[in-house]
């Protein structure tokens, strides 16, 4: 498999060229090296999993990608260009959205308003237009509301539209968070343990949504997940991290056969 040209997966999806490339990333917090000289790429249209034991540096990697942490070393290439150090909000405007390991919804707002904030990068009307409301601002609101309603239908959360998110059960909160990220129509969607703490049925729903997002919108997805069954089922390629180092990278089958990966997971309670 060459990395330069696109190919078609067994289930008929097209995986394109490299969308994001991390080159020799090193991230330190004082004495702790959270990420040590890691390189990997994410290709257009693929579902790329990042796995590893607790504290391996997976979340830190996502934080580097969306600009929340700045690596001491290494280069980040996105859409064929080397990315300079940027603020997270500027990176969001480049089409990178994410969900968080610990749900980070806006608790004082309804489901609908939470998802509408996801459209922020698409809404342009200035303060004067918004203060007047009638006219451009209202039209823009309606157009974006239609997009949001599509996402709401897609994730089947119509009935909780007006509910304050704080009142929702855990599984639904995770889904609203996904909706908020999807509303941005991202080129790259980062999911940090989207299924953590869910029961089997909820995990199945979430897996299906992730596959559907990838399939229907062609969204590139990078996800962190502890449930190996899920990872092996839905991802095209897997990066394995342990203590800040990359110890494996390849298709699920390749990774599963990798001795170093087996050793890292030996005695760790993930199957």
């Amino acid at each position, binding site marked *: 498999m060459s990395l330069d040209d696109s190919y078609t997966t067994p289930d008929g999806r097209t995986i394109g060229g490299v969308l994001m490339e991390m080159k020799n990333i090193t991230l330190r917090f004082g004495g702790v090296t959270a990420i040590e000289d890691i390189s990997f790429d994410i290709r257009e249209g693929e579902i790329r999993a990042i796995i590893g034991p607790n504290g391996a540096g997976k979340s830190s990697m996502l934080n580097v990608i969306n600009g929340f942490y700045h690596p001491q070393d290494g280069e980040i290439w996105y859409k064929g260009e080397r990315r300079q150090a940027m603020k997270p909000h500027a990176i969001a405007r480049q089409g990178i959205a994410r969900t968080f390991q610990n749900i980070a919804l806006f608790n004082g*707002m309804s489901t609908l308003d939470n998802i509408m904030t996801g459209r922020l990068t698409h809404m342009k009307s200035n303060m004067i237009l918004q203060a007047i409301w009638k006219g451009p601002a209202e039209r823009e609101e309606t157009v974006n509301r239609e997009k949001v309603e599509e996402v709401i239908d897609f994730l089947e959360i119509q009935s909780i539209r007006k509910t304050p998110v704080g009142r929702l059960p855990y599984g639904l909160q995770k889904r609203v968070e996904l909706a908020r990220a999807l509303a941005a129509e991202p080129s790259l969607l980062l999911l940090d343990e989207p299924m953590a703490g869910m029961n089997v049925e909820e995990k199945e729903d979430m897996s299906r949504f992730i596959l559907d997002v990838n399939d229907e919108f062609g969204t590139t997805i990078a996800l962190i997940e502890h449930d190996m069954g899920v990872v092996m089922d839905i991802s095209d390629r897997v990066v394995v991290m342990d203590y800040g180092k990359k110890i494996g990278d390849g298709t699920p089958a390749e990774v599963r056969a990798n001795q170093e990966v087996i050793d890292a997971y030996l005695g760790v309670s993930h199957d």
Partner: protein
Amino acid sequence: MWYREAGDFKKTYSEDSQTFPIRLDRIGYFVILLVAVLVVPFFITSYAANAVLVPFLIYAIAVLGLNILTGYCGQVSLGTGGFMAVGAYASYKLMTSFPDLNIFFVVILAGFVTAAVGMMFGLPSLRIKGFYLAVATLAAQFFLVWLFNKVPWFYNYSASGQINAPERTLLGYIITGPNTSPSAKYLFCLAFVILLAWIARNLTRGTLGRSWMAIRDMDIAAEIIGVNPLKAKLSAFGVSSFFIGIAGALYFTVYLGAVEVGEAFGITQSFLVLFMVIIGGLGSILGSFAGAAFLVLMPVLLKNVLVGGMGWPTDIAAHFEFIIVGGLIITFLILEPHGLAQLWRIIKEKMRLWPFPH
């Protein structure tokens, strides 16, 4: 059963996001507006205007302003009194430097001047949060009062150090100065209240309002979604100070007419407006009005009952008022942090189900 949403279907998204989604609310709102504009001015007495209505309207503007900053954007400010002073002194300097400038524009420009000053003092909010920001705004409060006391240019070198509002007219009616009629004062303030409440509502329901609330609820997630914290916080400080500056300008030009800065715009003013926000409800437009009405009306009522009705001495009644206000604030903070606005929502929810609660 007559107060409900059933049968009140929304056919478009813009209908769904209108200010009063329930028909009865809409009717109630227009009735209040009509009475306020067309009926009250004919019956208003000097006492009603000066003791109740004009201060209520002016405080409502200040509370809306602080609510945008604190209730919607989550940035605590104890500088309200100082920013009202900026509005007052800006209007004074404008009136005396440009005697021909229309009083309406004087007030609006005073709002813009205050917005600029507010944004400047909002800069620390990019670095500090919560308690420390409160202290920084407190410093702004004391600095501004000190400045207006210390620099004679601000009060045009008058011997008393006071500022006095000269007489100005609008459409032939006297708006400021000792000869203003109660209805002119009332209507002038009412016009600003209607305009600014409308703006506040529009700003808080759209993109800007959602970025403010996102910063308030979870600033890290907000930034990763694309909210620029600098823009969100500074715009909140700017809009908030614009409102508060207008309130300060009206407080001086229309309401008091003469002002000594420490007395009119001291730290007690900052706390009073903050209490109005808390009692009315953080992050609520309706609550802003409720909070202002409550703390303007209550002292008047208490005074009438205690001094007028029961013959208490004025000073004891005044102390009693402090106790009641303090007690109420503590009660609200503990029992209903979302204030009167939330109580109103709960009552409405009950009414919607009445008489069958299940």
